[in-house]
Every structure is written in structure tokens, then in C-alpha cells.
């Protein structure tokens, strides 16, 4: 199974996002590097709006991710509620 990843800047906005991603994807592994966090996951990775909202206590638009996003791999599927990264193989 190939790995996908998402990399985010390390800051106050992303702290809860990273926490939510790790909670929703128990198979994901966070790699902390200077000023950034890279989350690797076998097969696929999901970013769920509701989990982030629960942690930050306000509405969150998944497109806000763009502000602190560094990079990602895999096919992207985005809806109002979830952003999913995956490979077909």
C-alpha cells in the first residue's frame, strides 16, 4: 500500500487540525520537523470538518486549510465535510 501525506505549518491554527487528523486516522504518523509537521498514512487519510470544529469551538471551512497547508500527495476528494487523500493502488 502506498503512503499519502499532508504537511502543515506548525502554528496555533494547525495545532487542533493536526490533533483532529491524528484522532480520525489512527494509522497516521506525525513527523515533526522544523516549523512543520508532516503526517504520513498508509493508503488514505481523511480530514474531517466536524472533528476540527469540536476542538476549536467554532465553525470551520475546510478551505481554511489552504492558509497553513505546505504540501500533500495522493488524489484529493473534497466535500463540505471531508477532505480525503488516497492512492488507487
Amino acid at each position, binding site marked *: 500500500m*502506498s*503512503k*499519502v*501525506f499532508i*504537511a502543515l*505549518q506548525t502554528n496555533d491554527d494547525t495545532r487542533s487540525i493536526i490533533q483532529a487528523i491524528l484522532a480520525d486516522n489512527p494509522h497516521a504518523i506525525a513527523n515533526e*520537523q*522544523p*516549523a*512543520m509537521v*508532516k503526517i504520513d498514512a498508509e493508503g488514505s487519510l481523511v480530514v474531517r470538518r466536524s472533528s476540527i470544529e469540536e476542538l476549536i469551538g467554532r465553525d470551520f471551512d475546510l*478551505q*481554511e486549510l*489552504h*492558509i*497553513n*497547508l*505546505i*504540501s*500533500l*500527495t*495522493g*488524489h*484529493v*476528494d*473534497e*466535500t*463540505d465535510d471531508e477532505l480525503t487523500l488516497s*492512492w*488507487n*493502488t
Partner: protein
Amino acid sequence: MDMKVSKKKLGLKEKYQHMTRGLGWETTYQSMDEVFPYAKYEGIKIHDWDKWEDPFRLTMDSYWKYQAEKERKFYAIIDAHAQNNGHLSVTDARYINAVKLFLNGISPLEYMAHRGFAHAGRQFPGVGPRVACLMQSLDEIRHAQTQIHSLSNYNKYYNGFHEYRHMLERVWYLSVPRSFFDDAITAGPFEFMVAIGFSFEYVLTNLLFVPFVSGAAYNGDMGTMTFGFSAQSDEARHMTLGLEVIKFILEQDPDNLPIVQQWIDKWTWRGYRVLTLVGMMMDYMLPKRIMSWKEAWEVYFEENGGALFKDLARYGIRPPKWLDQIEKDKDHISHQAWAVFYNYAAACNFHTWIPTDDEMDWLSQKYPNSFDKYYRPRLEFWREEAKKGNRFYNKTLPMLCQTCQIPMLFTEPGDPTQICYREVDYKDNKYHFCSDGCKEIFEHEPEKYIQSWLPVHQIYQGNCFNEGVDPTAEGFDPLAAVLDYYHLNFGRDNLDFEGSEDQKNFDAWRGMATKNT
């Protein structure tokens, strides 16, 4: 009783449908073929532009909103950096030379990418890719601007930043990144998208931005970290566009496969060659190192690229050509490139040095198969010679590869003691290449590459001297005349870091920042 009326809001998919697809139309006064004259000549067959999927479904209104937010963050940090003498917080003034290389060699490419996406986007009959290209074109000009703004803080204090625009079109090593982009923007719109959108953005830019920018943070350079991450926040969208382009083209018609495969082979190799500069920056120019070039290559190319090409295999795509050579080269290219710049430091707009003992130990640990055997002895020898007063600056001109324009510095795959040369006879001339990859790219489009503006050839033809200079005059110094033409100040911008004005100033200013003198 109050009744709660929820505001009817469009979902992401509907909004994208209305605000992107809904903006296109079939032209009637002029035929679509006349309005989009470059859409067919490359041989790519598209039957239904509506099959285009933009996974992020970003519309222009949201685009402006998020980009504005990024700009506010960016300038707040850049102001703080300038107000706080941020340039004195970097680990070591040698580091600043990596940033010079960035401004001179990479930032102008952002501007060229801006032009390229504006041009390619204009040429696509489908509205989906047109809007995506418009956004990317705006992103790229933003990157050029934010990089120039942040690095102008360094230009106030250090040498070598002053004429990046002028130098891009003249200085020998800058023809490498420049010709790479010239090649891409003079291709058709589909090839441009495969070249820059897919091969460069998807397959290769992680190597440039992720470890290098994280390395800037590690070396205390808030300015570079900020423009780097601000640019990167757009990259995820660019990468997604690049992948979408490939899938879309391949799904439209089976005849597109061989054309796309040839472009992937060509542009992965072209981009890989340009990244030699980045490898050298990571291994030699960051005083505090974050990961080696080889490690970055393994994570971002072998692992991610491997997953990508495995996925694309269902369309019949195979991994890019020449990967076996790339695999062998990863132990060598950064060392070979640094050696060449050290040799030609008299003709550079940044400083060079021999790594310290600690740094050499780091390199042998990261490159157990190559560093101690091939590169350490050479560096130590040069260090000894410099100590004895024999620092040798090479003043003769190197042979360049006709395709990538890099001096012939790479070795035979599998034999790091033998420089690799390839040649082709074409229409009464002999052309030289650094590799099988560059040779084959030439052979596929010789009429394009015989027009290359090769800095060394241009110097020999007398085209790189200021007006009025007489190369036949007694005592004519060709190097001095070329440096004048480059607007490069001898003794300030070039030569070794040791003894440079930058080194002295940084030490003096850092002293002033920490003591009451």
C-alpha cells in the same frame, strides 16, 4: 413564534459548478478553433472538456479571500523581521549565500511561471483548467513578489542581491534555471502543463520547498521561511492541478499516452538536472543541516514519486526514464556541483568555502558510499592549498551541455571518476551533452535546442562584453570584462566567503547587536 429560516447556501460542488463552469461559453462569431489556436497542434485529443474535475473546487471569490489572508500573515512577519534586524539572527553568515542563490536562480522562475500559466490557461478551450491556470498564474506572481520583498531586506546589507534581474539573462550558471523555463514556456499549452504543472510541481517541487524552507527555519531565517511557507500553501493546489491534468489528458483518448509519456520522461529529467543546485544548497550551504539531499530525494522522490507512478500505471504510464542513473547519482551530484562552484567562485555572485571538519563528518555520515572515498580528499587538498596561499580560481570556461546548460561536471553512471560526455552530429555541427537523458531530449527536438543561448559560447563569440570593450587590446582580461557585463563586482560579490565583506560586516553587526560598543 419565531421560525428559524436558514440561509440558503450553495454547497461546495454547486458553487464550483456555477462560478467556474457557468462562466464558459461556446463562441459563435468566431470558431472555437480560431479562438483557441494552440489547442490541437501538439496532437493531444480532448473530446469533452466538461470531464475536467478540480478536486479543490476553489472559486475565485474564495481564492481572493484566502490569498488576502496569506498576504496579511506574510507581511506582518516580514515587517517584524526587518524591524528586528532579522538578518543577524541567522546561524552563520555563510547561510546568506544560499538565499542569494534562491533570489538569483529561483525567484525569477516564479515570474516566468506566472507568464507561462497565463499563456497556457488562455489557450485551453475548457473553462475548468482555464480558471485553475488563472489562479496559479496569480499565485506565481505573488511568489515572485513576496520573495523579492523579503530578500530585499538582505540586499540592504549584503552583496550579490543587487542585480538578479540583469544577471538572470547573462550569468553563466543562471542560464540553467532560465533555459529550463524558456524551454517550457515555448512549448505548447499541454506540454507546458505536463512540464511545469505535473513534472515540476507534482514530482519535484517538494524537494525544493519542503526540506529547504524547513532548513531556512532551522537556520534562523524567518524571512525565507515565511515566503517559503506562504508560497507552499499554494503548492498543494498546484500539485493537485498537475495530477489532474495528467489524469484528464490520459482519460480523454488513448492516443495521448505516448505523447504524455515522452513529456514526463523529458521534464522529469530536465527538472532533476535543475535541482542539482538545490542538492548543493542543502548539503553545503545550510550551516545547520536538516536532511541530506539524498535523504530528501528518497522521501520526496522515491517514496512519493514511486506511489504516484504506481497509481498512474493503470493508464499505461511507466516511471520516467533514466531512473537507474538518478538512483546512482544521488550519492554524488551535490558534491560535484559544489566542487565546480568552488572552482568558478571568481565568476559567481555568491561566496564559496570548504566545509568545516564537523560538516565533513556530517557529509561522510550521510554519504557513506561516496564522500570519504571521492570528495573529502579533494576538499582537504583544496583547503591545504588555500592555506599555503594557492587558492586556485579557475578562469577558463567549461564545456556546457547543449540541453541542460550545466557544465560537464557529472560523472558516468557507475564510475564517479570519469566525467560523462555524449555527443551528436547534427547538420554539420557537433553538440555536446552531459548524459544520455540530455542527449535523447536533444535528438527528439534538435531544431529547438540548437538555438540554445549557451553562456560559454556567447563569451567566446564576444557577445558578453560591454559596448566599446576591445578584446584585442593589449592586456585584455576576459574575466574582468565578462564580470563588468554581468554587473558583478570583483572582490565584493565573488570569491571565498573567508575574508569577504559580508563576513566582516556580519561579524561587526552581530557584535553591535549583542554588546554596548
